[in-house]
């Protein structure tokens, strides 16, 4: 076909025909493929199942605490499905990986909204992606039912599209600081926050400073990267400033590295971590000696540490599903409770749930009672904060059990 042929007309016809043949083949192929297409309802609600989305960090440095949460959520849904589902439909959980990376977040969110549509999303483990997606979420149609990390951008002002599912940083700071000040009988407490350099870290430190100021004390902070592997400078700063106690915000490694480094330098420092840092993995890594000074403040109760109804139910299910060791991880507990929240909200919608109906029903307000796994918490039109009552927990290596300091009601005075 490089030169003119002797009969231009014939060659035109010839190539037209060959192009037409190609197009016909393509057309047949497409129709055949489309014969296998299914109906994909926009809201994620099908005849026999409802698709519910999860956006969490399934891999990367933050996955240590977020992967158990996902399993907790999935296990609650599995329990519900095994009992027949919700109004005749099984709940199908689609978990997408946030991957702590802005571009992947956006792709994953779009996927859950339009590619494999879901009726609602839970989790949202990365505070950076919450901030980036906040305008889109609030203006969109898919509600976020039970966030894993609360950020101001998404939670303020209160939106009918967003419901926090985890203890807030403000309450963590208030309850933790209050407990330690009373425990150590401090007059003008000197506190240091060890935090990772994220939006959440900064917010947490601001709340800590606020809480400490109420007792007439001072608060300073040191920061490190999420992926930090050398905390010598931060620990040296702690040694230089000599605070009364410290509080740690970050991922598992943050707590482990800080406490280990303090031990290496022979420094005895009372410390409490935020709720996420209370998993068995952290305590195992710290060892018996390192765990003695380390506690964590939490609105959820680790599995197996008391005999409440909710706790026993969850532990039984976890054992049945073969989740060795996960039930003591408060991240798992949180996922379970959020699963309960999701399932109960769905159940109220009756036989033809839609995204709009879900939003409408939740906006009216509702209460989540996890029967002991956390204090009961309510959502009202003005308050989507979620669980706000916390207490301090520790770990006893001798008995390999979590221990708690007091009851949830003892701490109400800190978070008034």
């Amino acid at each position, binding site marked *: *076909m*490089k030169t003119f042929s002797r009969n231009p007309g014939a060659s035109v016809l010839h*190539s037209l025909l060959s*192009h037409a043949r190609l197009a016909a083949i393509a057309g047949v192929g*497409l*129709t055949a*493929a*489309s014969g*296998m*297409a*299914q*109906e*994909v309802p926009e809201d994620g609600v099908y005849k026999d199942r409802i698709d519910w989305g999860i956006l969490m960090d*399934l*891999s*990367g440095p933050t996955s240590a605490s977020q*992967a158990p949460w996902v399993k907790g959520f999935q296990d609650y849904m599995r329990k519900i499905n095994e009992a027949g589902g919700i109004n005749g439909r099984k709940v199908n959980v*689609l978990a997408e*990986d946030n*991957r702590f*990376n*802005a*571009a992947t977040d*956006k*792709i994953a969110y*779009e*996927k859950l909204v*339009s*590619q*494999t549509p879901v009726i609602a999303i839970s989790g949202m483990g990365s*505070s*950076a992606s919450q*901030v*980036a997606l906040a*305008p889109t979420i609030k203006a969109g149609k898919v509600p976020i039912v039970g966030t894993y990390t609360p*950020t101001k*951008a998404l939670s303020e002002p209160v939106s009918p599209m967003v419901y926090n599912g985890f203890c807030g940083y403000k309450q963590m700071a208030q309850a933790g600081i209050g407990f330690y000040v009373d425990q150590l009988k401090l007059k003008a407490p000197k506190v240091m926050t060890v935090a990772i*350099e*994220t*939006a959440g*870290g*900064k917010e947490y430190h601001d709340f800590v400073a606020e809480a400490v100021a109420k007792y007439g004390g001072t608060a300073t902070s040191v920061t490190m990267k999420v992926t930090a592997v050398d905390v010598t400078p931060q620990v040296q700063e702690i040694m230089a400033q000599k605070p009364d106690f410290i509080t740690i915000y970050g991922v598992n490694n943050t707590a482990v590295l800080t406490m280990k480094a303090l031990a290496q330098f022979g420094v005895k420092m009372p410390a409490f971590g935020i709720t996420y840092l209370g998993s068995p993995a952290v305590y195992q890594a710290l060892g018996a000696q390192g765990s003695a000074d380390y506690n964590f403040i939490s609105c959820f109760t680790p599995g197996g540490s008391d005999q409440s109804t909710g706790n026993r139910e969850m532990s039984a299910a976890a054992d049945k599903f073969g989740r060795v060791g996960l039930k003591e991880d408060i991240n798992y507990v949180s996922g379970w409770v959020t699963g309960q929240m999701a399932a109960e909200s769905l159940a109220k919608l009756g036989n033809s749930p839609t995204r709009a109906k879900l939003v409408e029903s939740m906006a009216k307000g509702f209460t989540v009672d996890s029967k002991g796994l956390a204090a009961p918490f309510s959502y009202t039109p003005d308050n989507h904060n979620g669980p706000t009552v916390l207490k301090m927990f520790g770990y006893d290596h001798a008995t390999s059990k979590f221990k708690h300091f007091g009851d949830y009601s003892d701490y109400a005075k800190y978070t008034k």
Partner: protein
Amino acid sequence: MTKHSSVSLKPAQPVSWQRWVWVALAVVLLCYLPIVLTDRAIFGVRLSNMQLLNIGMSQVNLMLIAMLGALSLNYLTGCAGLISIGHAAFYATGAMTAAITGTQWGWPFPLVLAAAGLAGALVGTLAGLPSLRVRGLYFVLSTLAVHYVVVYVFLEYQFKFFDVVGVPYNAASIGPIALNTPIRWYFFLLPLVALVYWGLSNTLKSREGRVMMAMRDHELATTSVGVDVRILRLKAFAFSSSIAAMAGALYAYFMSNATSEAFGINFAIQFIAMIIIGGMGSLGGALVGAALWLLLPSIISGFATQAGDATGIVRLLLVEHKAQLVQMIFGVLIIVLLIFAPGGIAGIGHKLRHRWSAGKDAS
């Protein structure tokens, strides 16, 4: 470095009308593609997610932006012979300029892009200055150092004027048309990529472009015929960096938020991976490399989700460590290509085409 590029030096042939039919077909397909991806249906018939290979408009738009980066890096490295690990730095420069001119000073979007391009050219010239002093490996290291310096500047800027949360960007709009849906972004980015491709391709065919390729192949010989390679190198750097900076501004506006972590060293390495996979020196190869790099993870991810309740090693690889599996596949792909086919996909394509036409001529 491969000795052949996609720029043909054969005498121009009369463009046959069949070529125009193919071009028209391609244009129609490219215009219909976003509609298929948004509606998830073709000619009204609904398609499942897997039939669409788990690809949505976000990946396609990100791919188009990445193509700009890959094209500009290929121009610099494949055609001008300057190896640079600093490409993320120019993206960051563009994002920062966009923040200053767009978010802080409120300039309209097209002006912001122009400003980003200018800033990129400036920073690119500065980044190219070490090439006056050092060559080869040392120059690569200087681009690495430039990367860290620029990203640090962005970090400080972000913390000083905004927050650890990230730098916010306004909504993009061209005059009265707001770029607020993925389809609009697509129809804005696609002609832009085509324009850049066409522009770079023409530059390479021009006299200066050919001198640049000569410089890549044998610098001393080029100097001996009276070409000032130093100026040429700086020009190449400035040109390539300005395109990359514009891509950075587009990226920032598209994501509506940017943090310094987004521009880490892995971001820079991914562009090198794209041009190696596609084939260094080949502009078309850069497009293919960018497409593969952005779309393949979603495709693999989609297949992985189909695995569902599988157990054992399949579950380990496909469900729990999807991201690592994708990384491993790419790493192995690059290693295999480097050892067996350093010309990348473009090189393979060339060989196949030669064999095809050789076979035809023979028969």
